[in-house]
């Protein structure tokens, strides 16, 4: 499926010497979205679903998703489960140790907004987006493997629209500064 994203966005096959002409953005985006390596860690019961998503039944490998047990060599962080305040510092540090470009999938209700602990859970961070920026929120308690795969597909969609030469985030910040 990743091949189609490459070839349908302006790729041209010359047939001579195996040269393919494309845009740099398309090439980089294709490479990034086809090898999303998540940091191999889990926080709560969502991690069990994350593990079964990686199992042969759901086969996360087919999207190029392989858990990587070092934040420095990972591209995406799956916050799979309840983030306690004690863990929030560690999650933030893990995120900071990851190299750019990096993405975050918030998996399950706890990581999204505190989940069942939203009112009386004095120990639970009410949404991991209070400490790190989140790209994709996957709802569920816990989400089924299909839902997590859906989250990855959403993230791929997001990466497909990115541009190295014209980074949207940077343009937005510059525009805000200019307007102010």
């Amino acid at each position, binding site marked *: 499926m990743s091949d189609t994203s490459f070839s349908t966005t302006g790729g041209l096959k010359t047939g001579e010497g195996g040269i393919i002409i494309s845009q740099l953005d398309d090439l980089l985006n294709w490479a990034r979205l086809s090898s999303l390596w998540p940091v191999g860690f889990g926080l709560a019961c969502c991690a069990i679903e994350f593990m079964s998503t990686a199992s042969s039944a759901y086969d996360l490998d087919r999207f190029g998703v392989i858990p990587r047990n070092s934040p420095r060599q990972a591209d995406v962080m799956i916050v799979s489960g309840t983030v306690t*305040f*004690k863990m*929030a*510092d560690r999650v933030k540090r893990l995120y900071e140790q990851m190299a750019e470009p990096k993405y975050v999938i918030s998996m399950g209700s706890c990581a999204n*907004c*505190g989940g069942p602990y*939203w*009112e009386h859970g*004095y*120990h639970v*961070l*009410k*949404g991991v987006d*209070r*400490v790190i920026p989140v790209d994709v929120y996957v709802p569920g308690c816990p989400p089924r493997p299909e839902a997590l795969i859906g989250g990855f597909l959403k993230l791929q969609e997001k990466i497909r629209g990115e541009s190295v030469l014209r980074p949207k985030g940077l343009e937005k910040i510059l525009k805000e500064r200019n307007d102010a």
Partner: protein
Amino acid sequence: MTPDTVKKIIEENFPEAILGEDPESTPLALTISGSRIVELCEFLHSNEQCYFDQLACLTGIDCGEESGKMEVVYNLYSIPFDFQLMLKVELERNNPVIQTVSTIWRAADWHEREAYDLLGIQFEGHPDLRRILMPDDWEGHPLRKDYVEQEKYHGIQVKWKAENE
């Protein structure tokens, strides 16, 4: 072994230690004076007639401001006699202090740390009385009835608020 024999053993060796009994509780629940808790536990642990060699659980209860009390509950189990016993000690809520039993059962170490962490009960003589669940720099003891969580932890708002979402 029956509840009556256990009560008799305690009464014979520690007169006036038993302050009360909950007739409806299973297992047998005795309210005990806290002043000689270590001696009593040591006795129950090593006495040939009961051998309470396992501390199944140790926990604390905040009985609320009106009562002015806190409780520490010991759930003992005798493996040789297959018998369970619950001991309760009432503490002053304003100054909950009691001797540690971690010298008798190592299992008490972490249980006492939990009671300290969540209720603020002080265990004198405990080898390492630190918080066990909450972060070290957390404020307050969450299972106290009058607990109000702090506004912020490390700059992060603690409460969920609708207007933030």
